[in-house]
């Protein structure tokens, strides 16, 4: 049975101020309801200021990176009316499309437009926090070109990568919201709301497709409706059917003149556009002569790609690529972190690579250093100092100490129980706090006890 999946993706734009006022767009450290003014609270009489130019440019940049055509007609800002506690004026402002007919990874992009975030409502406590109210969002609407949850997941990863590359969206995470449309074999279209991660998206689709297929198998029709994804239970649940669908009574906002997306503006944004992920991938393969897999791993995040390029100024690219793809990626995956979140700097990476090539750091110790940096924000150089391998003399004295302190084990070894030497190696490691090269310690012990 043929499955058709399409998305509406919302992500916050990384602007300095909100969309229609000058309250800061970054509210993360603010106490509830302090990052507000009369405009974003929708107080009686408050009027929107002009549309935030930074937000408009952000949407244009994203539309260009998704290969969209930019709209030349006046772009009206519409009021979408609905009644919910998080919406201070009873309507949400959303622009008509700014970009249209784009494409990414074989999936059609129907439109890209600008929208304002509502506040945050907690149904359990009944409290509303308007700090978020009025923060600019980009909304991306795709064609229903996706045919499986796996494809959906891959596409979303690709899209998230492009958004990150654009440099126009918030990187703190947790602000993306996805609505998904699913239909089977030209059956009714079901919309799923309330998805906010790629994992959630995958699970919601798995569940929903099974649900629809089961209905069909039992000869029942799939109803056209809106369902909510319940993350804790990994299921979708009906919110409203077509009959009770809301009428948003869209009107052009009389307080806001339409936007003009001029040729001049588009060209300026285009000239400042960052390299797209696939372009960077190609360039890395050619310029640094690294494999596609290496380049793919390194370009998974713009910040990591930038760091790689800087490292390559001082380290042979092949070696750097191997280190990024295997050691750094492994550490990040272990912590479930992005490179940007990890706090790793080019300086840290160069220090570790330098210590490995000078023989001061083993592969395992190098990983340990990275892990410490990521976990505790420690300085790599200091850690290297602490973890770098012992010189010959210190190792020898540690070996002497182990023999002196463990006469029993020495006795056992000499009396033929060869495995007792492993215990002594362990003791050397303990004494040197892991800095000893285990191979070398073993060799030295064997020599001393023979």
């Amino acid at each position: 049975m043929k499955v058709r999946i399409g998305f509406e993706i919302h992500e916050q734009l990384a602007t300095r101020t909100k969309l229609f006022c000058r309250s800061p767009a970054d509210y993360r450290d603010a106490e509830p309801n302090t990052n507000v003014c009369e405009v974003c609270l929708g107080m009686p009489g408050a009027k929107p200021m002009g549309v935030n130019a930074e937000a408009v440019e952000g949407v244009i940049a994203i539309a260009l990176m998704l290969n969209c055509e930019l709209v030349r007609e006046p772009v009206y800002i519409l009021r979408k009316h609905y009644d919910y506690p998080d919406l201070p004026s009873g309507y949400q402002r959303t622009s008509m499309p700014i970009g249209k007919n784009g494409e990414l990874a074989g999936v059609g992009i129907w439109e890209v437009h600008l929208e304002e975030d509502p506040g945050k409502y907690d149904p359990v406590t009944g409290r509303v926090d308007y700090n978020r109210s009025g923060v600019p969002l980009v909304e991306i609407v795709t064609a229903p070109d996706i045919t499986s949850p796996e494809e959906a997941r891959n596409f979303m990863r690709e899209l998230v990568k492009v958004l990150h590359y654009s440099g126009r969206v918030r990187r703190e995470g947790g602000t993306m919201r996805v609505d998904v449309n699913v239909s089977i074999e030209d059956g009714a279209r079901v919309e799923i709301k309330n998805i906010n991660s790629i994992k959630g998206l995958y699970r919601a689709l798995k569940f929903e497709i099974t649900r629809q297929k089961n209905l069909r198998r039992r000869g029942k029709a799939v109803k056209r409706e809106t369902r909510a994804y319940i993350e804790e239970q990994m299921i979708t649940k009906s919110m409203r059917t077509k009959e009770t669908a809301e009428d948003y009574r869209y009107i052009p906002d009389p307080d806001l003149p339409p936007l003009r997306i001029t040729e001049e503006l588009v060209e300026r944004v285009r000239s400042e556009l960052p390299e797209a992920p696939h372009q960077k991938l190609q360039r890395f393969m050619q310029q640094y002569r690294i494999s596609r897999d290496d380049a793919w791993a390194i370009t998974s995040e713009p910040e990591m790609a930038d760091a790689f390029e800087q490292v390559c100024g001082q380290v042979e690219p092949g070696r750097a690529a191997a280190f990024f793809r295997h050691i750094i990626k492994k550490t990040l995956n272990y912590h479930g972190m992005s490179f940007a979140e990890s706090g790793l700097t080019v300086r840290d990476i160069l220090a570790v690579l330098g210590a490995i090539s000078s023989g001061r750091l083993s592969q395992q110790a190098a990983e340990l250093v990275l892990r410490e940096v990521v976990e505790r924000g420690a300085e790599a150089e200091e850690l290297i100092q602490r973890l770098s391998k012992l010189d010959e003399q210190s190792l020898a004295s540690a070996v002497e100490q182990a023999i002196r302190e463990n006469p029993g084990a020495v006795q056992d070894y000499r009396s033929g129980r060869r495995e007792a030497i492993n215990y002594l190696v362990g003791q050397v490691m303990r004494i040197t706090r892991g800095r000893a090269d285990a191979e070398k310690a073993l060799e030295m012990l064997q020599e001393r006890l023979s």
Partner: protein
Amino acid sequence: MSRQALGEAEENLARRFEEIERRDREINSFIELNPHAQEEARRAEKLGGRLAGMTVAVKSNINVRGLRATCASKTLENYVAPYDAVVVERLRREGAVILGMTNMDEFACGSSGESSYFGPTENPSAKGRIPGGSSSGSAAAVAAGFADAALGSDTGGSIRNPASHCGVVGVKPTYGLVPRHGLIDLAMSLDQIGPIARDVRTAALLLEVIAGSSREASMLDVEPQPYSQRLSADLSGIKVGFAKEYEEVTSPEILGVVKRALRRLEAQGAELVEVELPNLEKALPTYYLIVFVEFFSATRRYDGRRYGYRIEEVCGEEVLRRIMLGSYISQKEYAGRYYRRALQFRSLIRRELLQALEEVDVLAGPTTPKLPHRLGERLTPLEMYAYDLLTVPANLAGIPAGVVPAGRVNGIPVGLQVQAKPLQEQVMLNVMLAAEGRA
């Protein structure tokens, strides 16, 4: 403290408060007086400014920090404004003293001043008659001598209509000339704040203080002009248009006053020209459809969660009617039939007015088609809406329009309405000054 010890501003204020105390029980032009007025007068005295010590009454749909902006509705009965409207900031900067918040038709939905939750306002210039609306209290307070001037708002005639009925001067500026930030919405694409005063010069002075660009999106990018200093009653070379369609819709006694005023303009050097406005009568339905839809949208925030009451549960019948009609016609299935067509007609009316104004400098004519009715007389909604027939075109077209007293019919004031091209407030005020001189 003796009278002599009081400064000029304080003395003026004290006199106004005395008058209000003595007579406003009967007029009912204020909903709330400013408890800090005296302190503000003292400060204004020191500060000086173009309006130093001038007492200004403010319509209850304009935010004045610390005072209630009730919109004369139970819905916002307890809404204390947390911020100053931009116009109020500008008044204060020039030394004006805010007297208090005036009565009005509920949410500015009315043309008679009778639909306030706080009771109707009396017409001080024609006792027993309506003062007009919706800026009823602002016009009445000026007419009664309670205030030197007032701020009103005009969506389809709400400044001009009561100015005409109360015999005072009122100006609706070009759309986008005066910041609306702080003005509680009726219909956002039509609303403008403007001055009401006893003479053209004061109105011009107030307008130059409140006009000029601000940060809000729908503003024109223009510098304020010193209208009051450039006033001139010499109309030589000025063409004044009169549309023959005005005659078809206006009562003969009002037309008589208007015609006499036109002849006085002629005597001041103006050339009278007849123009055509064939779509004049389409303005009213166009206007109301737009108002219903925009007002419905504007009132969604009064959902009972933040401001005490859900508007539909406590408002008067006219406000409810407009919300219901707005909700009905903005439904997806009807939007094309009503709202979108109204916007098309709006363009048509705007084009027609601007075309007529290409041939002349101003249009001059009646303000309302009929005289104010007696307080308490029941009108059907359509009869009430008909008051706005001649004032709504200026709002639909976004052009400036002012009203100046032109004479009386059986003691009832009648105002002459003057309309001009966008941003041509100066020539409009000049013509108003010329008309005023001989009224």
